[in-house]
Each structure stands twice: as structure tokens, then as C-alpha cells.
């Protein structure tokens, strides 16, 4: 299933309104079997949310956002890369 990042402009929205948008996103996502909200990161400086979604298509993400009344700016298809197990297990090298 393709992974996408979505930039959402949340300028002018309070934390409560951002929370509420999240509630609508969850409720509306039930209408799209292929769509899953994985997680989001809030950039307070840029007043943007960076969301990671699984979805069938970009069009599906745009339709979901339109129906749920949540902003959707740039959408990019991405691939997941996780830290190498060796690095994750031992952490960053330390100075001796």
C-alpha cells in the first residue's frame, strides 16, 4: 500500500481545532477502506502538520480531506526507511 506525506496548513487554528480536525479525519477515514492515518507531526514554527498516511491514491487523500473539512496541501508519495537494526540496538557512537 503506498505511503504518502501530506502537508496541512494549520495557521490560525487553535490546538482544539487541530484536535477536532483529527477527530473528523478518523471518523471520515472509515469511508475509505484503503486509507489509514499513521501519524502526524506538528511544526509550530511553520504552523503546518506533516501527516503520514497509507492510501490507494492521492485523489483518495484529497477527497478524504475535502469531506472531513481538513486542509491538504502538498502530497508526496514516499517510502519508509527505518534505522538499521545495528544502529538502533547500540545507539549513536560516543566519544571515548
Amino acid at each position: 500500500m503506498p505511503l504518502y506525506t501530506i502537508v496541512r496548513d494549520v495557521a490560525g487554528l487553535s490546538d482544539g481545532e487541530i484536535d477536532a480536525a483529527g477527530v473528523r479525519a478518523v471518523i471520515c477515514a472509515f469511508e475509505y477502506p484503503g486509507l489509514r492515518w499513521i501519524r502526524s507531526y506538528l511544526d509550530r514554527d511553520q504552523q503546518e502538520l506533516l501527516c503520514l498516511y497509507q492510501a490507494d491514491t492521492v485523489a483518495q487523500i484529497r477527497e478524504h480531506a475535502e469531506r472531513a473539512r481538513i486542509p491538504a496541501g502538498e502530497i508526496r508519495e514516499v517510502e519508509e526507511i527505518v534505522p538499521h537494526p545495528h544502529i538502533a540496538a547500540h545507539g549513536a557512537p560516543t566519544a571515548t
Partner: protein
Amino acid sequence: MQLEASAEARRLGSPFVTVDIFFAVFLRHFARFGYFTFGPITIDVRLIGDIVDSTAERDGSQHHVYSDDFVRFSQVLSQEVRRSGHSRLDELHMLLAFMRCDEGLPSRVFSELGVTPAQVEAHARAASSGVVAPERLYSPEEAADYLGVHVQTVRAWIRSGKLRASRLTGQRALRIAASDLQSVLEPVESGQDLD
């Protein structure tokens, strides 16, 4: 339930999923025997459905968005989730959010019922600790109306022992518990003759 709200908006030909539509679908989803019952709350689900049917905005649309009042409702709902300290949205959050919603059908219904969120929360706490309020009781006429049979059929079932009932102390009046109405229902197996 969310899917049902969408389907309901589509059925109504409404351009919006409104708070009223979501409320009607919520009640129907959790209703038993035509009534939504939770502690001090009892709501006739068919009546709510009829009101939504007659008041919903229609334009024949098959593509609907969440309405302005739903956007406001989602804020009440998210506050409710936050207030509860739970991260998972559940039906109690929705019920309390409907009760705290100050517009639309939920506002009218709960102001007429005169039930407060505090009472519902107290019931929820009692229910989770095993102390549950008594369930709704039906008269034979109400039971017959719900099941779609003649009242004499209900009385015959009671006489034969097929349907459990009780008398009000010192009176002839019969009452049937909601859960006992299930005893006269049996699922239809596939391949069974339906005539």
C-alpha cells in the same frame, strides 16, 4: 457507524453529513427494540429518524462533506475525548458530546429529556463497576407493536411460557423486560424456506 452516517446522507440525498444525521445514526446503531436506552435516557429512535427525514437539506447529492455544525460538534467531541483522559474515541464520548452540543436535534432532545451529562457519567461509572440501572420494561401492547404481532399473540406467548413476563405488584398489569423480548426471535438460517 461512521459508514452508516455516510450512507444515510447518501440515502437522504443530502450534500452534508450533519450533526442531526450523525445523531440519528448513532442512536439507531446502539438501539434495541426501537429505543436507545442508557441509564436515565430513553429515546424513540424511529421518531428521531422521522425528524431527520423531514428536515434534512437535500439536493440529490451523492457527494457529501461534513457540515459546519458537524465541524463545531467535532470540537466538542475532541474536548470530550481529552477530558476523559482516554486516547480512544468511544460511544460514551459521542453521547456526552451530543449532550453538550448546543445546536441541532441533540440539543433539543436532551433539553426536553432534562438529563445532564453528570447523570450519564454517573450511570457509566456504575455500569462499569457492575451496578447497572434496571432495563426498560414493555407493556404487552408496546411489545406487540415493536414485534409487529397482535397483542393477543404476545399474551398467548406469555401464557404458554414462551415469553417471560412479570406483574406489577398488586396489579394485573404485565410488563416484559427488553432482554426477554429476544426470546421470541430466532435467526433465519440460510437456505430456510421463507414462506
